[in-house]
């Protein structure tokens, strides 16, 4: 699998994403600067976490209109896989590549902690490394991760199997207690219609090493490498 990680001037988890891809898939991604208007030939593009252009406006609002995102959008339309993590998820919703929006966390504060995620489907290129219903321990670190969409959109996402992950309790129960940020229906990550674009708030790239607390993020990168090689 060939991959690339987009670097905005305010990206700050591009190194973490690079590390996870290099370590888990064995092949290091290319870093692509935000002002570039062309993408290298790759199977996967990662839009990483951070603060793209400072995010003093809505998170990801400006990045969604950057030259490189026009190219990402065009290539995604042709089937290239795109993974947006945290700020990357925010950018993908702002760019219209995924429905809904990420609002301020319900508690109005930045939250950095390990949470639990329930895998909703294993039948995608992103989640093939997991079992359906599997419970993962992965960290979140965000101020604006409260997923919001109207009821009709949420119903449509659910009916078409486009929910990738939901926040849950350690037992796997999807409850308000397991929801760290107030996201609608505990949604932590969603797919586009073709399930070739995934946006999620948690950080699987920070869960690849037992010494760091969890290896549950490895499955995502391993699954992608298997599906796209």
């Amino acid at each position, binding site marked *: 699998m060939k991959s690339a990680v987009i670097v905005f*001037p*305010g*990206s*700050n*988890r591009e*190194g*973490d994403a690079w*590390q*996870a891809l290099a370590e888990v898939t064995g092949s290091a991604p290319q870093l692509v600067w935000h002002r570039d208007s062309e993408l290298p030939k790759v199977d996967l593009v990662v839009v990483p*976490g*951070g*603060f793209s*252009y*400072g*995010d*003093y406006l809505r998170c990801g609002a400006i990045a969604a209109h950057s030259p490189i995102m026009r190219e990402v959008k065009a290539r995604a339309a042709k089937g290239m896989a795109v993974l947006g993590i945290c700020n990357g998820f925010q950018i993908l919703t702002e760019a219209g590549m995924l429905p809904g929006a990420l609002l301020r966390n319900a508690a109005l*504060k*930045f*939250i*950095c*902690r390990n949470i639990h995620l329930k895998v909703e489907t294993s039948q995608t290129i992103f989640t093939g490394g997991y079992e359906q219903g599997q419970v993962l321990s992965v*960290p979140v*670190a965000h*101020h604006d991760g409260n997923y919001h969409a109207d009821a009709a959109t949420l119903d449509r996402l659910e009916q078409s199997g486009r929910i990738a992950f939901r926040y849950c309790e350690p037992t796997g129960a999807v409850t308000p207690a397991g929801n760290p940020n107030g996201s609608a229906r505990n949604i932590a990550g969603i797919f586009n219609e073709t399930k070739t674009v995934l946006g999620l708030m948690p*950080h699987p*790239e*920070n869960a*690849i*090493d037992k*010494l*760091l*607390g969890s290896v549950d993020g490895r499955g995502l990168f391993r699954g992608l490498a298997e599906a796209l090689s």
Partner: protein
Amino acid sequence: MTQSAVAGTSITPNIVAEHGLTADEYQLILKIMGRAPNLTELGIFSVMWSEHCSYKSSRRWLKRLPTEGPVVIQGPGENAGVIDIGDGQAVVFKMESHNHPSFIEPYQGAATGVGGIMRDVFTMGARPIANLNALRFGSPDDPKTRHLIAGVVAGIGGYGNCMGVPTVGGEVNFHSSYNGNILVNAMTVGLAQADRIFYSKAAGVGNPVIYVGAKTGRDGIHGATMASAEFNEDSEEKRPTVQVGDPFTEKLLLEACLELMATDAIVSIQDMGAAGLTSSSVEMSSKGGLGIEFDLDKVPVRETGMTAYEIMLSESQERMLMVLKPEAMEKARAIFEKWELDFAEIGRLTDTGRLVLKKDGKIQADMPVEPLVSEAPVYDRPTAATPAKAPVAASALPAIEPLAALKTLLACPDLASKRWIWEQYDYLVMGRTLQRPGGDAAVVRLPDSAKGLALATDCTPRYCFADPKMGGAQAVAESWRNLTAVGATPLAITDNMNFGNPQRPEIMGQFAGCVEGMREACLALDYPVVSGNVSLYNETNGKGILPTPAIGGVGLLKDASRSVSLSFKSEGDAILLLGETKGHVGQSIALRELAGREDGPPPPVDLAAERRHGDFVRALIAEGKLTACHDLSDGGLLVAVAEMAMAGRVGASLELPGEAKAAPLAWLFGEDQGRYLVTCAGAEAEALLARAQKAGVPALRLGRVGGPALTVAGHGSISVAELTRINEGWLPGYMGAAS
């Protein structure tokens, strides 16, 4: 000189006083200048000679601190300290206060404190890899405390999270002495190549002086002078002297500087922190023995009509001053254009030894550089020793059950969990945080290496108040102990000296005493001071804060995977207590929380024992003999056991020794120093006790890990879940009551 500096407003005694200068200091200025200064020149003298920039009250004492050692590459005097950690790598670190701004405008005050200390570190060529902080707030009952906590925490997170530097640790205390004067001390740790450290000393007459980063506005003018004065009811009117932070611009500045530093373009570099363009240009030129000439019309400004005075004294953030090699100018310009930052050649180095400022076709200032630094006043202020406190007997503690006392202590503000705070900091970005906030020390792994750094901030202000010398020694010893408790070899410290008004002899006595205690501990533990910051005049309406010499410690783990945490790991592990327990009650949290008394002497620090015990523990961790380790500090033994149980979500059964029976509360909650709680496999316990005895380390088998509850034989039992509920409940409950 064909033209002389514009005279402008004539300087009255009133203007001199408004600039925080004494009449004697002004006489010295007249002598240095050979004429009356104009307002711009006076402003430059006032900030350079402020307490904040000149260390005029503290300098003679700071010289007492040991600053050398085999690992020290750069001690105090540069933007940050630098130590050698082998393999061609260096660690660059410093802690700095932003106390007054944070009280006036907590979000921006704290945010720019974090931004400023990160700049100090990357100015030297290091990429920041961890942030820490040491925070002191007033009593929770004070009506302002909630607002200050909310703002400071959001500000620290807002800046550090955006920069992508993990905030991995810190400490928080509450005490009414901070009601009108909170302390916000921020520490940054960076990693550099040992042979690629950048310094501020200017060189090369004719070399261009370059301004990069954000534009200059009217914010923060006289911040350094404000930081050198006491507070009163009118302090809120000083809000315009607080700078506004822009972490995104700082992120750009960081990346652009590091990119430029990878080339061979920079002669010297200095960030514009306190006193902005003034102190950065004076420091660079004075260190190089050179003069500097600026065309202030070329300084990128945010507002029109700014005067020379305002431009020189502005403390706008995210700015740097560099001397470049002329041939590297275009390459450097291209890098800053890539990052979309201002890059302006605003002057050049001269051989005149003078600072000459031109603006609007006129000379706005023309003054000698050297005396701004070398003739800055140094005061030998009178000191008064703190009277010794009468000892407090164990019987001063009320006769209550130990587990009831434990519940009270775990819910008290100083010991309650600070999770509500540190979960607002991104402590994971960079993906190398091995030990997270909440333990004795944070541990971050170094990139592409087995090595790790252990980091902690420490101070027990109530000990320093009761006995400055013992308190100063204890702060250093506890820092050393915290790093040891995760298995690291402590290497060096940065200090952030927060005190009251130095013109009062008792305050100067506290300062001198703390320095003396720190000196003894640094020498005994081979733990030099490589950087630091002094913040005086932390008083409101004549009432000083508790003396607070915050210590930021850095230690090295050769193999970070060997580090141990404080959490209990496995059922059946033996719990051993290392170090001597006498039940010292004076100045303990138990005495304050259970008996309402803040008195007595602090626990004595035996530095030889400290070293012996610590070296023993570190060796055991390196050998993989221990499954958990926790240093004993605030709250003493039983609080430490509870913390280990809560972290591991598993209980323990303790059996108190005969010596504890006479005064169990003092034994369980006394704060004797030089102690650790460790766990090991049950089968190893006897061998470890024998080794301890051989090494001269008092050791005692206290119990075993297991079950859902903490049980003290003869005193009952409490579930770990209940302890957690109590310990985690206080701060969210307190802050929640705000909304």
